[in-house]
Protein backbone atom coordinates (compact mmCIF):
# COMPACT_ATOMS: atom_id res chain seq x y z
CA UNK A 1 0.00 0.00 0.00
CA UNK A 2 2.61 2.46 1.08
CA UNK A 3 4.63 2.21 -2.13
CA UNK A 4 1.50 2.64 -4.24
CA UNK A 5 1.90 4.74 -7.36
CA UNK A 6 -0.34 7.68 -8.07
CA UNK A 7 -1.36 8.73 -11.56
CA UNK A 8 -1.81 12.45 -11.75
CA UNK A 9 -1.79 15.35 -14.15
CA UNK A 10 0.12 18.48 -13.29
CA UNK A 11 -0.56 21.77 -15.03
CA UNK A 12 2.85 23.34 -15.54
CA UNK A 13 3.15 26.67 -17.30
CA UNK A 14 -0.23 26.02 -18.87
CA UNK A 15 0.65 22.56 -20.16
CA UNK A 16 -0.66 19.27 -18.85
CA UNK A 17 1.93 16.71 -17.72
CA UNK A 18 0.68 13.22 -16.90
CA UNK A 19 3.01 11.49 -14.44
CA UNK A 20 3.08 8.41 -12.25
CA UNK A 21 4.72 8.95 -8.89
CA UNK A 22 4.87 7.73 -5.33
CA UNK A 23 3.02 9.88 -2.80
CA UNK A 24 6.34 10.81 -1.20
CA UNK A 25 7.56 12.47 -4.40
CA UNK A 26 7.90 16.20 -3.68
CA UNK A 27 6.67 18.66 -6.28
CA UNK A 28 10.26 19.87 -6.69
CA UNK A 29 11.50 16.36 -7.53
CA UNK A 30 8.50 15.68 -9.76
CA UNK A 31 9.21 18.82 -11.79
CA UNK A 32 12.83 17.83 -12.32
CA UNK A 33 12.71 14.04 -12.47
CA UNK A 34 9.31 13.29 -13.95
CA UNK A 35 8.52 16.36 -16.04
CA UNK A 36 12.03 17.21 -17.24
CA UNK A 37 11.76 20.79 -16.00
CA UNK A 38 15.19 21.13 -14.40
CA UNK A 39 15.05 24.90 -14.14
CA UNK A 40 13.66 24.61 -10.62
CA UNK A 41 16.63 24.05 -8.34
CA UNK A 42 16.77 22.18 -5.06
CA UNK A 43 18.93 23.67 -2.35
CA UNK A 44 18.22 22.66 1.21
CA UNK A 45 15.13 20.48 0.67
CA UNK A 46 13.69 21.57 3.99
CA UNK A 47 12.17 24.93 3.33
CA UNK A 48 15.00 27.26 4.32
CA UNK A 49 16.69 28.41 1.12
CA UNK A 50 13.84 29.17 -1.27
CA UNK A 51 15.75 27.95 -4.36
CA UNK A 52 12.80 25.73 -5.35
CA UNK A 53 10.22 28.55 -5.25
CA UNK A 54 7.46 28.12 -7.85
CA UNK A 55 4.08 29.78 -8.20
CA UNK A 56 0.98 27.80 -7.31
CA UNK A 57 -2.22 29.58 -8.38
CA UNK A 58 -0.15 32.76 -8.55
CA UNK A 59 1.34 32.53 -5.07
CA UNK A 60 5.00 31.72 -4.35
CA UNK A 61 5.49 28.44 -2.49
CA UNK A 62 8.42 26.19 -1.74
CA UNK A 63 8.20 23.17 -4.05
CA UNK A 64 10.21 21.01 -1.64
CA UNK A 65 7.47 21.42 0.98
CA UNK A 66 4.65 20.13 -1.22
CA UNK A 67 3.97 16.68 -2.56
CA UNK A 68 3.30 16.36 -6.27
CA UNK A 69 -0.03 14.68 -5.44
CA UNK A 70 -1.08 17.89 -3.70
CA UNK A 71 -0.43 20.02 -6.77
CA UNK A 72 -2.95 18.27 -9.00
CA UNK A 73 -5.61 20.69 -10.17
CA UNK A 74 -3.50 23.72 -9.33
CA UNK A 75 -1.80 26.03 -11.86
CA UNK A 76 1.96 25.69 -11.35
CA UNK A 77 4.40 28.10 -12.94
CA UNK A 78 8.13 27.52 -13.07
CA UNK A 79 11.09 29.51 -14.37
CA UNK A 80 10.71 27.77 -17.76
CA UNK A 81 7.46 29.69 -18.26
CA UNK A 82 9.04 33.14 -18.07
CA UNK A 83 10.82 33.53 -21.41
CA UNK A 84 8.59 33.70 -24.47
CA UNK A 85 9.90 32.20 -27.72
CA UNK A 86 13.47 32.30 -26.48
CA UNK A 87 13.28 35.98 -25.54
CA UNK A 88 13.92 36.80 -21.88
CA UNK A 89 11.10 38.59 -20.11
CA UNK A 90 11.68 42.03 -18.49
CA UNK A 91 12.51 40.53 -15.09
CA UNK A 92 15.03 38.12 -16.55
CA UNK A 93 16.61 40.93 -18.59
CA UNK A 94 16.79 43.09 -15.49
CA UNK A 95 18.58 40.30 -13.61
CA UNK A 96 21.20 40.13 -16.39
CA UNK A 97 21.59 43.89 -16.67
CA UNK A 98 21.86 44.48 -12.92
CA UNK A 99 24.25 41.63 -12.17
CA UNK A 100 21.62 40.01 -9.98
CA UNK A 101 23.24 36.61 -10.34
CA UNK A 102 26.67 35.11 -10.26
CA UNK A 103 26.62 31.34 -9.94
CA UNK A 104 22.93 31.27 -10.80
CA UNK A 105 21.89 28.50 -8.45
CA UNK A 106 19.36 30.55 -6.52
CA UNK A 107 18.22 32.51 -9.59
CA UNK A 108 15.16 30.46 -10.61
CA UNK A 109 13.75 30.80 -7.10
CA UNK A 110 14.41 34.54 -7.00
CA UNK A 111 12.89 34.98 -10.47
CA UNK A 112 9.68 33.26 -9.40
CA UNK A 113 9.54 35.19 -6.14
CA UNK A 114 10.18 38.38 -8.10
CA UNK A 115 7.45 37.46 -10.56
CA UNK A 116 4.96 37.11 -7.71
CA UNK A 117 6.03 40.47 -6.26
CA UNK A 118 5.68 42.22 -9.62
CA UNK A 119 2.27 40.68 -10.23
CA UNK A 120 0.76 41.32 -6.81
CA UNK A 121 2.58 44.41 -5.54
CA UNK A 122 4.51 46.23 -8.30
CA UNK A 123 4.77 49.42 -6.21
CA UNK A 124 6.25 47.55 -3.23
CA UNK A 125 8.23 49.70 -0.77
CA UNK A 126 11.99 49.20 -0.45
CA UNK A 127 11.54 47.92 3.08
CA UNK A 128 8.86 45.41 2.07
CA UNK A 129 10.95 44.28 -0.89
CA UNK A 130 13.93 43.49 1.32
CA UNK A 131 11.60 41.66 3.70
CA UNK A 132 10.06 39.66 0.84
CA UNK A 133 13.49 38.74 -0.56
CA UNK A 134 14.71 37.60 2.85
CA UNK A 135 12.89 34.32 2.30
CA UNK A 136 15.43 33.19 -0.29
CA UNK A 137 19.17 32.66 0.11
CA UNK A 138 21.85 33.88 -2.31
CA UNK A 139 25.49 33.43 -1.39
CA UNK A 140 27.00 35.43 -4.31
CA UNK A 141 25.32 38.76 -4.83
CA UNK A 142 24.64 40.21 -1.40
CA UNK A 143 20.99 40.73 -2.46
CA UNK A 144 21.35 44.44 -3.30
CA UNK A 145 21.52 43.73 -7.03
CA UNK A 146 18.58 41.36 -6.86
CA UNK A 147 16.47 44.07 -5.21
CA UNK A 148 17.72 46.55 -7.81
CA UNK A 149 16.81 44.20 -10.66
CA UNK A 150 13.27 43.68 -9.41
CA UNK A 151 12.85 47.44 -9.01
CA UNK A 152 14.24 47.98 -12.54
CA UNK A 153 11.84 45.39 -13.94
CA UNK A 154 8.93 47.07 -12.18
CA UNK A 155 9.94 50.40 -13.69
CA UNK A 156 10.43 48.90 -17.16
CA UNK A 157 7.03 47.18 -17.01
CA UNK A 158 5.20 50.30 -15.85
CA UNK A 159 6.82 52.30 -18.67
CA UNK A 160 5.84 49.61 -21.18
CA UNK A 161 2.35 49.55 -19.74
CA UNK A 162 2.04 53.33 -19.99
CA UNK A 163 3.40 53.44 -23.57
Amino acid sequence: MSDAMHDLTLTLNGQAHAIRVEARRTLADALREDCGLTGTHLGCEHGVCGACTVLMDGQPVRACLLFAVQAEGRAIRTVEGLAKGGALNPLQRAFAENHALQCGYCTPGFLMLGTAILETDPGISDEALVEALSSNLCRCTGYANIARAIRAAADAMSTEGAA
Partner: protein
Amino acid sequence: MKPAPFAYHDPRSIEEVLDLLASLDNARLLAGGQSLMPMLNMRVAFPDHLIDLNRVEGLTGIMEEGGSIRIGAMTRQRDIEESEVIRARLPLLAEALSHVGHRQTRNRGTIGGSLCNLDPSAELVAVATALDAVLEVQGSAGIRELSIHDFPVGFMTPALAPEEMLTAIRLPVPPAGHGTAFTEFARRHGDYAIVSAAVLLVLEGSRIARASLTLGGVGAGPLRLRTAEAMLVGGAPSEATFGAAAAECAGIEAMSDPQAPAWYRRRLSAVLTRRALETAAARAAV
Protein backbone atom coordinates in the same frame (compact mmCIF):
# COMPACT_ATOMS: atom_id res chain seq x y z
CA MET B 1 16.51 13.89 0.77
CA LYS B 2 13.39 11.78 0.45
CA PRO B 3 10.64 11.04 2.91
CA ALA B 4 10.26 7.39 3.89
CA PRO B 5 7.37 5.71 2.04
CA PHE B 6 3.88 6.26 3.43
CA ALA B 7 0.32 5.65 2.35
CA TYR B 8 -1.33 8.87 1.26
CA HIS B 9 -4.93 9.62 2.18
CA ASP B 10 -6.83 12.51 0.67
CA PRO B 11 -10.15 12.81 2.55
CA ARG B 12 -12.78 15.47 1.76
CA SER B 13 -14.69 15.66 5.05
CA ILE B 14 -13.95 15.87 8.76
CA GLU B 15 -15.89 12.61 9.24
CA GLU B 16 -13.58 10.83 6.79
CA VAL B 17 -10.53 12.19 8.62
CA LEU B 18 -11.88 10.96 11.96
CA ASP B 19 -12.61 7.52 10.49
CA LEU B 20 -9.07 7.31 9.15
CA LEU B 21 -7.57 8.46 12.47
CA ALA B 22 -9.60 5.84 14.31
CA SER B 23 -8.65 2.99 12.01
CA LEU B 24 -5.01 3.63 11.06
CA ASP B 25 -1.88 3.11 13.12
CA ASN B 26 1.02 5.57 13.08
CA ALA B 27 -0.89 8.18 11.05
CA ARG B 28 -0.04 11.87 10.90
CA LEU B 29 -2.19 14.76 9.73
CA LEU B 30 -0.66 16.94 7.02
CA ALA B 31 -1.79 20.56 7.30
CA GLY B 32 0.27 23.26 5.57
CA GLY B 33 3.33 21.05 5.66
CA GLN B 34 5.80 23.82 6.45
CA SER B 35 7.10 21.99 9.52
CA LEU B 36 6.03 18.40 8.90
CA MET B 37 7.47 18.28 5.36
CA PRO B 38 11.00 19.19 6.52
CA MET B 39 10.62 16.58 9.24
CA LEU B 40 9.56 14.01 6.63
CA ASN B 41 12.31 15.04 4.21
CA MET B 42 14.92 14.66 6.95
CA ARG B 43 13.25 11.49 8.22
CA VAL B 44 12.79 12.89 11.70
CA ALA B 45 9.17 11.82 11.20
CA PHE B 46 8.23 8.62 9.41
CA PRO B 47 4.51 7.93 9.63
CA ASP B 48 3.01 4.91 7.89
CA HIS B 49 0.01 6.99 6.88
CA LEU B 50 -0.28 10.61 5.93
CA ILE B 51 -3.75 12.14 6.04
CA ASP B 52 -3.81 15.28 3.92
CA LEU B 53 -6.18 17.93 5.28
CA ASN B 54 -5.78 20.31 2.35
CA ARG B 55 -8.92 19.19 0.53
CA VAL B 56 -11.11 18.73 3.61
CA GLU B 57 -14.20 20.92 3.60
CA GLY B 58 -15.18 23.05 6.58
CA LEU B 59 -11.79 23.69 8.14
CA THR B 60 -11.10 27.21 6.88
CA GLY B 61 -12.50 30.65 7.51
CA ILE B 62 -12.44 33.59 9.90
CA MET B 63 -15.68 34.56 11.63
CA GLU B 64 -16.58 36.94 14.41
CA GLU B 65 -19.16 35.46 16.74
CA GLY B 66 -20.22 36.36 20.26
CA GLY B 67 -17.19 38.41 21.29
CA SER B 68 -14.71 35.95 19.81
CA ILE B 69 -13.03 35.39 16.49
CA ARG B 70 -13.27 31.81 15.31
CA ILE B 71 -10.58 30.66 12.89
CA GLY B 72 -10.72 27.30 11.11
CA ALA B 73 -7.67 25.15 11.80
CA MET B 74 -6.67 24.97 8.12
CA THR B 75 -6.88 28.72 7.53
CA ARG B 76 -3.61 29.83 5.92
CA GLN B 77 -1.38 32.11 7.94
CA ARG B 78 -1.26 34.60 5.10
CA ASP B 79 -5.07 34.78 4.91
CA ILE B 80 -5.16 35.54 8.63
CA GLU B 81 -2.38 38.11 8.36
CA GLU B 82 -4.24 39.94 5.59
CA SER B 83 -7.73 39.61 7.06
CA GLU B 84 -9.45 42.94 7.74
CA VAL B 85 -11.27 41.46 10.73
CA ILE B 86 -8.03 40.23 12.28
CA ARG B 87 -6.19 43.50 11.66
CA ALA B 88 -9.02 45.47 13.22
CA ARG B 89 -9.97 43.19 16.11
CA LEU B 90 -6.86 41.09 16.90
CA PRO B 91 -3.88 43.11 15.66
CA LEU B 92 -1.60 41.11 17.97
CA LEU B 93 -2.19 38.07 15.78
CA ALA B 94 -1.39 39.95 12.56
CA GLU B 95 1.71 41.49 14.10
CA ALA B 96 2.99 38.11 15.28
CA LEU B 97 2.33 36.52 11.89
CA SER B 98 4.71 38.95 10.21
CA HIS B 99 7.45 37.11 12.14
CA VAL B 100 6.30 33.61 11.14
CA GLY B 101 8.64 32.36 8.43
CA HIS B 102 8.25 34.09 5.10
CA ARG B 103 5.60 34.88 2.54
CA GLN B 104 6.09 31.55 0.77
CA THR B 105 5.72 29.55 3.94
CA ARG B 106 2.77 31.64 5.19
CA ASN B 107 1.01 30.96 1.90
CA ARG B 108 0.90 27.31 2.92
CA GLY B 109 1.30 27.27 6.70
CA THR B 110 -1.89 27.10 8.77
CA ILE B 111 -2.83 28.27 12.27
CA GLY B 112 -3.90 24.78 13.33
CA GLY B 113 -0.75 23.21 12.01
CA SER B 114 1.42 25.62 13.93
CA LEU B 115 -0.53 25.14 17.17
CA CYS B 116 -0.44 21.34 16.92
CA ASN B 117 3.23 21.29 15.97
CA LEU B 118 3.72 23.23 19.21
CA ASP B 119 7.26 24.36 18.53
CA PRO B 120 8.61 26.07 21.67
CA SER B 121 9.37 29.24 19.73
CA ALA B 122 6.20 29.32 17.62
CA GLU B 123 4.74 32.82 17.53
CA LEU B 124 1.16 31.60 17.12
CA VAL B 125 1.38 29.46 20.24
CA ALA B 126 2.55 32.48 22.26
CA VAL B 127 -0.24 34.68 20.89
CA ALA B 128 -2.92 32.05 21.48
CA THR B 129 -1.68 31.74 25.06
CA ALA B 130 -1.64 35.50 25.60
CA LEU B 131 -5.21 35.79 24.28
CA ASP B 132 -6.58 32.79 26.27
CA ALA B 133 -7.58 30.89 23.15
CA VAL B 134 -10.15 28.11 23.25
CA LEU B 135 -9.52 25.16 20.96
CA GLU B 136 -12.20 23.06 19.30
CA VAL B 137 -11.08 19.46 19.19
CA GLN B 138 -13.07 16.85 17.34
CA GLY B 139 -13.01 13.09 17.83
CA SER B 140 -15.35 10.20 17.19
CA ALA B 141 -17.16 11.10 20.44
CA GLY B 142 -17.88 14.63 19.23
CA ILE B 143 -16.43 18.08 19.79
CA ARG B 144 -14.75 19.13 23.00
CA GLU B 145 -13.38 22.50 23.98
CA LEU B 146 -9.94 22.86 25.41
CA SER B 147 -8.17 25.88 26.88
CA ILE B 148 -4.85 26.70 25.23
CA HIS B 149 -3.37 26.59 28.72
CA ASP B 150 -4.15 22.86 28.93
CA PHE B 151 -2.97 22.15 25.39
CA PRO B 152 0.80 21.66 25.78
CA VAL B 153 1.59 18.51 27.76
CA GLY B 154 5.29 18.40 26.93
CA PHE B 155 7.88 19.32 24.33
CA MET B 156 6.04 19.61 21.00
CA THR B 157 3.25 17.44 22.40
CA PRO B 158 -0.35 18.68 22.33
CA ALA B 159 -3.10 17.23 24.51
CA LEU B 160 -4.73 15.42 21.58
CA ALA B 161 -5.65 11.75 21.56
CA PRO B 162 -4.44 9.82 18.50
CA GLU B 163 -7.96 9.76 17.06
CA GLU B 164 -8.61 13.47 17.62
CA MET B 165 -7.99 16.56 15.52
CA LEU B 166 -7.99 20.31 16.07
CA THR B 167 -10.75 21.83 13.94
CA ALA B 168 -10.89 25.48 15.02
CA ILE B 169 -9.51 28.04 17.41
CA ARG B 170 -11.51 30.76 19.16
CA LEU B 171 -9.83 33.95 20.30
CA PRO B 172 -11.75 36.27 22.64
CA VAL B 173 -11.62 39.89 21.44
CA PRO B 174 -10.21 42.04 24.26
CA PRO B 175 -12.38 44.94 25.52
CA ALA B 176 -12.10 48.52 24.32
CA GLY B 177 -9.17 50.46 25.73
CA HIS B 178 -6.70 47.67 25.20
CA GLY B 179 -3.35 47.64 23.47
CA THR B 180 -1.21 44.73 22.34
CA ALA B 181 2.33 44.23 21.15
CA PHE B 182 4.49 41.40 19.90
CA THR B 183 8.27 41.56 20.09
CA GLU B 184 10.83 38.93 19.26
CA PHE B 185 14.50 38.39 18.74
CA ALA B 186 15.72 36.03 16.05
CA ARG B 187 19.08 35.94 14.34
CA ARG B 188 17.37 36.80 11.07
CA HIS B 189 13.81 37.96 10.48
CA GLY B 190 11.71 34.88 9.74
CA ASP B 191 13.95 32.50 11.67
CA TYR B 192 12.75 30.71 14.76
CA ALA B 193 12.56 33.21 17.61
CA ILE B 194 15.16 32.79 20.33
CA VAL B 195 12.67 34.59 22.58
CA SER B 196 9.36 36.27 21.79
CA ALA B 197 6.95 38.24 23.96
CA ALA B 198 3.20 38.71 23.42
CA VAL B 199 1.55 41.35 25.56
CA LEU B 200 -2.02 42.53 26.11
CA LEU B 201 -2.81 45.51 28.35
CA VAL B 202 -6.28 46.79 29.16
CA LEU B 203 -6.30 50.33 30.57
CA GLU B 204 -9.11 51.93 32.57
CA GLY B 205 -8.38 55.60 33.03
CA SER B 206 -4.80 55.84 34.16
CA ARG B 207 -4.68 52.33 35.65
CA ILE B 208 -3.92 48.92 34.23
CA ALA B 209 -7.10 46.85 34.54
CA ARG B 210 -5.77 43.67 32.96
CA ALA B 211 -2.40 42.43 31.81
CA SER B 212 -1.42 39.33 29.88
CA LEU B 213 2.26 38.50 29.31
CA THR B 214 3.46 35.42 27.44
CA LEU B 215 6.97 34.42 26.47
CA GLY B 216 7.78 32.04 23.65
CA GLY B 217 11.07 30.27 23.07
CA VAL B 218 12.22 30.15 26.69
CA GLY B 219 11.04 26.66 27.62
CA ALA B 220 9.31 23.58 26.27
CA GLY B 221 6.03 25.47 25.98
CA PRO B 222 4.69 29.02 26.15
CA LEU B 223 5.25 30.73 29.50
CA ARG B 224 2.58 33.00 31.01
CA LEU B 225 4.17 35.42 33.47
CA ARG B 226 1.37 35.36 36.06
CA THR B 227 3.40 37.00 38.82
CA ALA B 228 4.38 39.92 36.63
CA GLU B 229 0.79 40.23 35.43
CA ALA B 230 -0.42 40.52 39.03
CA MET B 231 2.19 43.19 39.70
CA LEU B 232 0.91 45.25 36.79
CA VAL B 233 -2.80 45.20 37.53
CA GLY B 234 -3.89 48.30 39.43
CA GLY B 235 -0.67 50.14 38.68
CA ALA B 236 -0.03 53.03 36.36
CA PRO B 237 1.33 52.28 32.90
CA SER B 238 4.71 53.82 33.69
CA GLU B 239 8.33 53.08 32.98
CA ALA B 240 8.86 52.07 36.59
CA THR B 241 5.92 49.65 36.63
CA PHE B 242 7.00 48.04 33.36
CA GLY B 243 10.61 47.84 34.50
CA ALA B 244 9.59 46.06 37.70
CA ALA B 245 7.36 43.60 35.82
CA ALA B 246 10.06 42.88 33.25
CA ALA B 247 12.59 42.32 36.04
CA GLU B 248 10.52 39.25 37.04
CA CYS B 249 12.05 37.54 34.01
CA ALA B 250 15.33 37.26 35.93
CA GLY B 251 13.79 34.39 37.87
CA ILE B 252 12.21 32.35 35.08
CA GLU B 253 13.35 28.90 34.14
CA ALA B 254 14.83 29.13 30.65
CA MET B 255 16.34 26.49 28.40
CA SER B 256 19.84 26.38 26.96
CA ASP B 257 20.38 25.17 23.42
CA PRO B 258 23.04 25.67 20.73
CA GLN B 259 21.44 29.01 19.80
CA ALA B 260 21.53 30.64 23.21
CA PRO B 261 22.25 29.83 26.87
CA ALA B 262 19.59 30.20 29.57
CA TRP B 263 21.00 33.45 31.03
CA TYR B 264 20.81 35.05 27.60
CA ARG B 265 17.19 34.01 27.19
CA ARG B 266 16.36 35.50 30.59
CA ARG B 267 18.02 38.78 29.64
CA LEU B 268 16.20 38.84 26.31
CA SER B 269 12.92 38.03 28.02
CA ALA B 270 13.22 41.06 30.29
CA VAL B 271 14.10 43.41 27.43
CA LEU B 272 11.43 42.11 25.06
CA THR B 273 8.77 42.12 27.78
CA ARG B 274 9.54 45.72 28.71
CA ARG B 275 9.49 46.85 25.08
CA ALA B 276 6.23 45.02 24.41
CA LEU B 277 4.64 46.55 27.52
CA GLU B 278 5.66 50.06 26.46
CA THR B 279 4.35 49.57 22.93
CA ALA B 280 1.10 47.99 24.13
CA ALA B 281 0.53 50.86 26.57
CA ALA B 282 1.16 53.46 23.87
CA ARG B 283 -1.31 51.69 21.58
CA ALA B 284 -3.90 51.40 24.34
CA ALA B 285 -3.64 55.10 25.07
CA VAL B 286 -4.35 56.15 21.47
